[in-house]
């Protein structure tokens, strides 16, 4: 067997491990092992590549490759190990961005490398697509990171004529691609790189913080496609397979997420959602009365319940209250009360984020129920405990066609006999909309920091 065949076989093995990993994610039981299998497959591919011949000779610059890898590992491992679970979305965003950047660099360098041999038009097209998509993913992810890390405002950034300007930038990129295809100019390639960079930024700026989860998943898909494009240029099946898998996964997730918000993808991407707080949100607060209670009142309500459904939102994670929440749930369960967690698909800052945060607090995953099941459970629940959620329980999404979130599927906390709403203040949620549930006669508001309040409730429940 020739050296090349052996390496290709090893690549095939790697591609298979990636599929095994994705399949493993079908259940929490096998997911971790699957991820390890894929990591091993990746290692095999990397080692095999060291023995590959390019342009008829062994790899040059092995020392430089190892040095670059060492730098990457030294930065990546501590970052990945020690970042808080709440910061996971921005971490995924930045790791995704660097992948896009790498794919873009690979495409550019390959173009510089093969230009003298007059590549076929389709090869140039692959290069240009790789550069465009990879760079948009890179700069877009950087802005998404800045938004999530609160280095800049999470609200949509808008300016007059934004859509037109963005369209012009997009068209400029396409025009450049056509021009380079015809002329084969390297100078223009650098220009395309710059335009793509600006396009990524301009594309992400008007997207509000609440929609960033959808965006990250779309950018993830972009990077996958950029990698697949590089695979075409380099003639690597491994890159094509892996890139396409990720591209498909990202697009699928993006669609699922927009569906969970009851909006179309184009509405998410282009409408600058949440850029102004609606009139009802600003004026409705003063005029209407709400019922508020103490943590002790809440404890009484909870201990007399037989079924409690907890509806957590991102506020829970911000207050770092997931551990106290689990303590409360344990305490209630020891009194024979049934406790469930109702998880909205867009709770948190990325798809499935809330599940990870609760898993971190050792909440068993079989207590987490998805939206539809939660809504049928809520019909027979005595108490719905809303902690740090807001828009995902807002009845206006079902009842008020004028509301910006109208049509978004929600968790119907109002179906439960009593609603306990833990809230820091009367401020509207991330989407900037007032919540009708707060004024519901069965709702009791408990103001304060979620962690403080929950600690007091736990103490009161223990004492009873």
């Amino acid at each position, binding site marked *: 067997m020739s050296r090349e065949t052996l390496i290709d076989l090893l690549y095939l093995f790697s591609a298979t491990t990636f599929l095994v990993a994705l399949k493993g994610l079908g259940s929490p039981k096998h997911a971790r092992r699957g991820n390890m299998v894929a990591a091993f497959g990746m290692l095999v591919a990397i080692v095999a590549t060291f023995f590959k011949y390019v342009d008829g000779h062994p790899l040059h610059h092995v020392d430089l490759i190892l040095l670059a890898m060492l730098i990457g*590992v030294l930065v990546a491992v501590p970052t990945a190990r020690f970042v808080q679970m709440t910061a996971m979305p921005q971490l995924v965003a930045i*790791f995704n961005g*660097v992948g896009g950047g790498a794919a873009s660099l690979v495409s550019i360098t390959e173009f510089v490398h093969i230009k003298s041999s007059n590549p076929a038009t389709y090869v140039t097209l692959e290069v240009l697509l790789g550069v465009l998509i990879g760079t948009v993913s890179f700069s877009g992810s950087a802005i998404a990171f800045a938004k999530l890390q609160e280095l800049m405002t999470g609200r949509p950034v808008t300016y007059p004529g934004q859509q037109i300007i963005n369209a012009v930038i997009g068209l400029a990129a396409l025009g450049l691609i056509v021009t380079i295809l015809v002329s084969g100019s390297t100078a223009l390639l650098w220009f395309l790189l710059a335009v793509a960079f600006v396009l990524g930024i301009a594309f992400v700026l008007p997207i509000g913080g609440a929609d960033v989860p959808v965006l990250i998943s779309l950018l993830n898909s972009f990077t996958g496609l950029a990698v697949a494009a590089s695979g075409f240029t380099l003639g690597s099946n491994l890159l094509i397979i892996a890139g396409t898998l990720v591209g498909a996964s990202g697009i699928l997730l993006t669609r699922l997420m927009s569906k969970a918000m009851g909006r179309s993808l184009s509405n998410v991407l282009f409408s600058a959602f949440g850029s102004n707080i609606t009139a009802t949100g600003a004026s409705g607060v003063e005029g209407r009365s709400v019922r508020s209670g103490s943590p002790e009142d809440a404890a009484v309500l909870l201990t007399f319940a037989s079924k409690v459904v907890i509806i957590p939102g991102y506020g829970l994670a911000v207050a770092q209250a997931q551990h106290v929440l689990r303590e409360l749930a344990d305490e209630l369960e020891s009194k024979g009360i049934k406790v469930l967690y109702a998880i909205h698909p867009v709770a948190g800052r990325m798809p499935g984020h809330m599940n990870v945060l609760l898993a971190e607090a050792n909440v*068993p995953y079989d207590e987490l129920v998805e939206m539809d099941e939660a809504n049928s459970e809520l019909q027979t629940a005595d108490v719905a405990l809303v902690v740090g959620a807001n828009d995902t329980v807002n009845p206006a999404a079902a009842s008020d066609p004028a509301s910006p979130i109208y049509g978004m599927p929600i968790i119907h906390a109002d179906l439960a006999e009593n609603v306990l709403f833990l809230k820091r203040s009367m401020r509207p949620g991330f989407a900037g909309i007032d919540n009708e549930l707060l004024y519901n006669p069965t709702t009791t508001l408990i103001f304060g920091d979620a962690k403080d309040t929950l600690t007091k409730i736990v103490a009161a429940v223990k004492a009873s």
Partner: protein
Amino acid sequence: MNALLQYATVLVLAAFVGTEIISKVPSILHTPLMSGSNAIHGVIIVGSMLILGSANTNLEEVLGFLAVILATLNVVGGFVVTDRMLEMFKARKPKAPDTKSKDAA
């Protein structure tokens, strides 16, 4: 052109297989799915190694070197983060609760 056709075939098949497998991932695991697939596109490290390994000019060397660093960040960061997340997913009552409380922020 034959090579192009072969690659296109692989692309189409991978897209279908990917969609099929991924649609079976429950929403509870969507975050690990994103970060796991994130790690998988880190396979661009193979491409980065090839371009740095065949670099003839200084420009190619610099670009290739940067590409390898970025790709390593992507692949290593992706797998480590995913593993850290998946480690936490446990079924009911696996062990004494909360031995390594990290919530003191």
